[in-house]
């Protein structure tokens, strides 16, 4: 079986057999390159296809489904083959879920926590980020042995390569020069949530070679904002309605993938510089002005006719930003649609009708 044909689980098991360590990583921002350099395959846990049953005994119904699905996966024993967990400090719900798993349920495997600064403005935050990276490295070293500094440099280079390939994906799509539907695009993007860079890079290159230059320029361009493109059926609906997501402001998308490269010598400082120059994100405490400007720049660059905010139900970081962002966009003549989404629930009739009506309005 080729890597492309393997399921996520098969791929991860195959990697494990090859001697790599597999870590379950919860959303959202973390230093992938450091994990790769320590021979760890980070397998991100966002919206696994499980049914929430066991997690109901641990979490109230008003907690977002990313957290509920993640915990369910752990409780069902589907993470038993993993060698560790990494919990980035994304929001209150992830923070407490990390503690529930580590302190109350017992993960039976090493749990690491990664705190990224929420005060992104000062020098203190940058220095802290570097120290936090080193702290994570030292903790991982206790389990996995010493980090090879050359390996880190090499993985950072691979990280740059991946970002530039994703950058190319996004640019071509923006120009209507990528011959893939919305679903296929995000399927490919999301394979980066678990493929090791040695496998991801050739796969992305192959994808580009196959699909470059034949895109459908006339499709209606819109920007997709939110955490992730779920339910996936919404992407199929866009295809059916002749909508091209011309760019996104998704947490699994441009906010994490389009990482500007850094030329600093010190690899830790390099990682820090890249982190602080990523597009603005609600989970990093980005000011509204920056998010507004970012969205406006995407609209301008891609000629988008509207913005769809596909917001995960109960996601506080996102829901707080939505009113001001929609308001500002409307003031500038860009129509917006806000969807309140439960993950993996398919496309409800109401959601479908709202999307159809929105597309009709902007057409």
């Amino acid at each position, binding site marked *: 079986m080729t890597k492309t044909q393997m399921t996520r689980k098969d791929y991860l098991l195959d990697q494990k057999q090859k001697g790599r360590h597999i870590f379950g990583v919860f959303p959202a921002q973390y230093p992938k390159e450091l994990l790769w350099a320590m021979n760890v395959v980070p397998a991100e846990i966002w919206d696994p296809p499980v049914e929430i049953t066991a997690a109901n*005994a*641990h*979490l*109230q119904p*008003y*907690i977002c489904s990313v*957290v509920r699905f993640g915990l369910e996966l752990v409780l069902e024993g589907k993470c038993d083959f993993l060698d560790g967990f990494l*919990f980035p*400090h994304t*929001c*209150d*719900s992830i*923070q*407490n*879920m*990390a*503690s*529930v798993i*580590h*302190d*109350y*349920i017992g993960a039976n495997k090493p749990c690491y*926590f990664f*705190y990224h*600064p*929420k*005060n992104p*403005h*000062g*020098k*203190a*935050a940058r*220095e*802290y980020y570097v*120290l*936090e990276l080193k*702290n994570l490295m030292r903790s991982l070293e206790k389990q996995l042995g010493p980090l090879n500094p050359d390996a880190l440099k090499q993985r950072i280079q691979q990280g740059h390569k991946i970002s530039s390939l994703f950058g190319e994906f996004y640019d071509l799509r923006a120009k209507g020069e990528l011959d893939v539907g919305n679903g296929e695009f995000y399927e490919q993007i999301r394979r980066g949530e678990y493929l090791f860079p040695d496998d991801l890079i050739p796969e992305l290159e192959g994808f580009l070679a196959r699909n470059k230059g034949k895109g459908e320029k006339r499709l209606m361009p819109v920007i997709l904002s939110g955490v992730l493109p779920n339910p996936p059926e919404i992407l199929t609906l866009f295809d059916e309605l002749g909508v091209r997501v011309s760019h996104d402001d998704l947490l699994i998308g441009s906010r994490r993938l389009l990482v500007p490269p850094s030329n600093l010598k010190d690899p830790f400082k390099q990682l820090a510089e890249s982190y602080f120059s990523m597009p603005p994100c*609600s989970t990093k*405490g980005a*000011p*509204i*002005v920056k998010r507004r400007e970012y969205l406006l720049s995407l609209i301008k660059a891609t000629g988008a006719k509207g913005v769809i905010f596909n917001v995960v*139900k*109960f996601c*506080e*970081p996102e*829901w*707080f*930003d*939505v*009113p*001001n962002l*929609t*308001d500002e966009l409307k003031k500038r003549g860009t129509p917006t649609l*806000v969807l*309140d989404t439960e993950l993996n629930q398919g496309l409800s009739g109401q959601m479908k009708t709202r999307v159809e009506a929105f597309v009709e309005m902007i057409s």
Partner: protein
Amino acid sequence: MSFAQKARYNFMKDLGAPALMWLRQSQRKKRPRKPNPYLGPPLKCAGRLREIMTRHYYLSRFSKGAKPVAWVTSGAPVELLRVFDFYTIYPENHGALCGAQKKGPEICSEAEKKGYHPDLCSYARIDLGHAFSGKTPAGRLPRPDLLFCANNICQTVLYWYKELSYYWNIPLIIFDTPYNFQDIREKDIEYMVCQFEEMIPELERISGCKYSHDRFMKIIGIARESASTWGRVLATMKHRPAPISIFDAFVHLAPIVSLRGLPIALDYYRILLDELEERVAKGIGAVTNESKRLMWDNIAVWFKLRDWSLLFAERGLNFVAATYTNAWAETIHYLDEMSPFESMARAYSLVVLNNSLNYRLKLMEQMIRDYQVDGLVILSLRSCKPYSVGQYDLRRLLGERLGIKSVVIESDMTDFRAYSEEQTRTRLEAFFEALEV
């Protein structure tokens, strides 16, 4: 700051506010409350507390232009702002006030009209609703010159204050306190100290005042003393019968939240403590027939405070401990004039909500023992993820380890649209049965 506004503020402070207090008091004397057979005599201090808080909100109306005004989160290290003479307003305290006066849904809906989702924290919705509509039972709140936010209680405050900052185009200072997944680390302290250093020039610029280290040390001393006196107030509930209940403590918490670092808060808690010690000596309880003692986990349900204090008192149940009221006594003792910044970093980042759930479990175990608690009421608050995520396991583990009986009730602290009287009553009845009361 203008001279005229300062003169007006001083006039109101020296004459207007005392006149208002006098008027209120004389009106109140005319309608004394009927004693309740299940509750102990009301605290004599209650009048003084009312006076202090009314004066605080009343004077705030005249503060704009006379002093720099800051809106501050409940867990923020306000001691530093006091050096620059900021008039501080606590939107969470204001939210509680709106909740107690049953104004939550009305003011929240002003924020909802602007697109803020009803699932968001209701303190935030009340505050934003007030910002958009001006609605408040407090008369009028001064528009801030600065927003000061610490994420040691939740990340929500960060999202919420960002909105205010954007809406009013005013500066926001964030004090970022890394979450203690395990023990606090030296580098966390250093990061927080560096943030203080970065803040000072900004605070000088906004307030027009120079930083004074001597003043800061004095304020640190007052804050520590106030918090430790507050801690002693809470500790009186270790006595049987407890001279106050947690329902009282929820109310008497206001000065330590809103006026921390000011002499008035310390003076008040000294008076309160004297009164409680006298009650202990005389065997006067908050509940006339205290038979079982309970612990509360989470923020208060402000719109049910009076109803529930009666409901429980009728059965001889008294709440003697709460993680929430304890939060302002728990770590402020770290404050130390000799190392003000480091100690402040420690004091503010070690609060219960910024620590792992293991910490909370141990803290609750200790409190259950110290306060001889027989039962636990866990409030699951849809507004508050950091307080609520993990409570189901907390309940299970405390039950397994200590055999403590408990109940989980669902509500919101101010928005009674998210509260079901029927469901709560059913759960509480079952709990009372289990406690055999």
